[in-house]
């Protein structure tokens, strides 16, 4: 009964497969093993291990880099759910280190200070899957053509303001809808305008959806924000500063998980939104001095 085939790791199917498993879930930013346990107890489907949440990176300034491996190991040991970690845009050595540490997903993230102003990481060179941010469909397709297995709309991390996430989701999904209406000649123009590979644009015209799961990040602070992202068409949500910068993280985390599952049921959303204490304060876009979403090429 010996199998004739090869045992293959790191294939596109295996890498995209983990993204499929995270759908309908909430991925939470955590900076300590204790926070990771709170996240898992609340029902997070994965955690993002980092040294500072985006709100603090924004406040402190300076260069934001990959987290200390010791800190990542501590979080890995604390939970049984998948652990993600961030590498700087283009910093393929940080990604190599994260892969060696056995993280389950690498986020090539604009929240960290970019290491390369022209190139993203060649993500096909890795066994570990990558998620990348995107503000529009062209950016999403360029990341997919480099091997990203999950796209998250960027939003504006660390603001507690959902407006940019909504803009990016609407841009990506709106263009997908428009492409399905285009005729074959118009697809050449779409590829040119999006600065995206033509075959990927043609594939979207056929299937009506992105090649990889589309999640939402950047600005989710309440259960209603999470449900808004899901109703707009995101398939899961990342919550960064929104949980551990609120007055009472554990119940808020649980409420956001329940809102993400029941995102179309306003009665349940009303129930889980009650008595959660103060959300993170948040900032208006006019007061944002540095837009992380503009990082990435």
């Amino acid at each position, binding site marked *: 009964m010996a199998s004739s085939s090869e045992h*293959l790791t790191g294939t596109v199917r295996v890498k995209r*497969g*983990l993204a*499929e498993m*995270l759908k309908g879930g909430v991925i939470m930013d955590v900076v300590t093993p204790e926070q990771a346990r709170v996240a898992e107890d609340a029902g997070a489907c994965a955690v993002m291990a980092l040294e500072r949440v985006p709100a603090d990176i924004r406040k402190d300034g300076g260069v934001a880099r990959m987290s200390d491996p010791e800190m990542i190991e501590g979080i890995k040991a604390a939970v049984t759910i*998948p652990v993600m970690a961030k590498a700087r845009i283009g910093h393929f050595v940080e990604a190599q280190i994260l892969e060696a540490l056995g*993280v389950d997903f690498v986020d090539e993230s604009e929240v960290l200070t970019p290491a390369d102003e022209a190139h993203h990481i060649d993500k096909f060179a890795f066994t570990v899957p990558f998620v990348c941010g995107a503000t529009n469909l062209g950016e999403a397709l360029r990341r997919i053509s480099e091997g990203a297995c999950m796209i998250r709309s960027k939003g504006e991390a660390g603001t507690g303001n959902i407006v940019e996430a909504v803009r990016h989701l609407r841009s990506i999904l709106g263009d997908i809808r428009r492409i399905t209406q285009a005729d074959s000649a118009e697809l050449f123009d779409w590829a040119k305008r999006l600065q995206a590979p033509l075959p990927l644009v043609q594939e979207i015209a056929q299937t009506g959806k992105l090649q990889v799961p589309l999640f939402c990040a950047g600005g989710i602070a309440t259960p209603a924000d999470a449900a808004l992202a899901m109703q707009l068409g995101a398939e899961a949500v990342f919550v960064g500063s929104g949980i551990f910068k609120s007055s009472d993280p554990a119940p808020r985390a*649980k409420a956001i*998980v329940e809102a993400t*599952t029941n995102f179309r049921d306003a009665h349940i959303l009303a129930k889980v939104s009650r008595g959660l204490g103060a959300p993170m304060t948040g900032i208006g876009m006019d007061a944002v001095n540095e837009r992380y979403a503009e990082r990435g090429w």
Partner: protein
Amino acid sequence: MNVRVGVLAVQGAFLAHSEILEELGVTAVEIRQPAHLGGVDAMVLPGGESGTMSKLLVSTGLYEPLGKLLHGGLPVFGTCAGMILLGSSILDGRDDQSCFGVIDIAVRRNAYGRQVDSFEDDVDTTFGQFHGVFIRAPRVEEVGRDVEVLGSHDGEPVLVRQGVALAAAFHPELSGDTRLHEFFLSHVAGLVPVAINQTAKEM
């Protein structure tokens, strides 16, 4: 007869299952609340994070009514995390994680390692070779007397059946092969005629 198959949709890869079920001509119903369970002829428990799904089963109030239906003989197909939920005990799980116990197996979570160890490989089944996609997959470590092993990989059981419950450690919903869903609907659940198409006949 319009066959309705509930797909547990609290978290995980439920959409991929729904698409295959619809392709096979049955109605897939997303199950997020107890009220959604009315009138389903069978259930699918998809892959996802088993701990997260277990918590959401409790917070949505689904755990008890779904457990009752499964123990009352509702046909069910679980993949990966779904297999963990159907088993009788969980090794390396969280203390607060529960399972339905409709298949007498002990299942170890993430038994093959982390995501970099996730793999695809052929699985030998009683109806021929099947390409298995294993994502942070569970491993069946003990098999009860009443459990039939229908498929194995490297000598270990990866596809098991007990009565009307079927479970796979891998993800047939990701490999574009509908044979296992057909097998479930026809042979295990008895909901659709046995030979619904050519591939089913070959089984």
